[in-house]
């Protein structure tokens, strides 16, 4: 029997052994493996659930922020309107004052 014969026998034994090992490994720990599968699935489901909750919370925060900003914008627009009204009143006052002052400084005929 040469060395290569021995190696080939070892290879055949190894291949056969792994078939037996495949069967034994599953038979011995079938319950645990199934439980592991279930746990992996439940972890995936709970992770997706957490992600959805987080995204929903972020969406609500963003909506609240948008409504706050909208309120700010409307109050600022109101303020601008009020200021422009004041500016036009002041302009009118200024024109009136100019007219009065030009009448007062008009040289006597």
């Amino acid at each position, binding site marked *: 029997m040469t060395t*290569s014969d021995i*190696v*080939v026998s*070892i*290879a*055949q034994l*190894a*291949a*056969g*052994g*792994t*078939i037996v*090992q*495949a*069967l034994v*490994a*599953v038979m011995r*720990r*079938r319950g*645990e*493996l*199934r*439980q*592991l*599968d*279930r*746990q*992996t699935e439940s972890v*995936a489901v709970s992770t997706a659930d957490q992600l959805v909750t987080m995204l929903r919370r972020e969406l609500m925060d963003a909506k609240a922020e948008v409504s706050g900003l909208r309120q700010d914008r409307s109050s600022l627009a109101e303020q601008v309107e009020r200021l422009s009204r004041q500016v036009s009143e002041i302009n009118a006052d200024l024109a009136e004052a100019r007219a009065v002052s030009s009448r007062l400084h008009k040289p006597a005929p």
Partner: protein
Amino acid sequence: MGWRAQLSTNPFASMVAATAILLGGLGMVIGDRASRGMSISLAGHANVIAHLWGAMFAVGGVLTLFGIYRPRLTVELPGLYLLAGGYGFYCLTVLTGLRTHGLAAGLISGALTLGSLLKARAITARARHVRPEPPVEPPVDAPAVEGRVPEPRGGGAG
């Protein structure tokens, strides 16, 4: 998880299993002509053994791929052991048959054997330390079932 996500998570395992299906299928169909090293080292009864090896290898690849993409560890674990056996057999026969000419193929398949065995051992270790499941609670309507009024006998149509 979709198959694209699984492929990007397990690229090497997927390719190892797919290669095993391809090589194993070739060995199963055309026998020892699939590998020169195998036909030299298994002189005499090479063909039968090559067919058997191909079948085992292809089955291992299919089980591993199914186990990865399903995902089911109960299927992946035997697939990994079959892959380890197939790659190990190929490694030893190619090194014996072709000597130094089979060094590249032999080393690669030997490394894949080790990888498959390591992954199978990791899965077994995870299964050994798995948390015990909480006891299943009885359904809410269990008392109602217990307290159900038995139906009158002989009243039904049978």
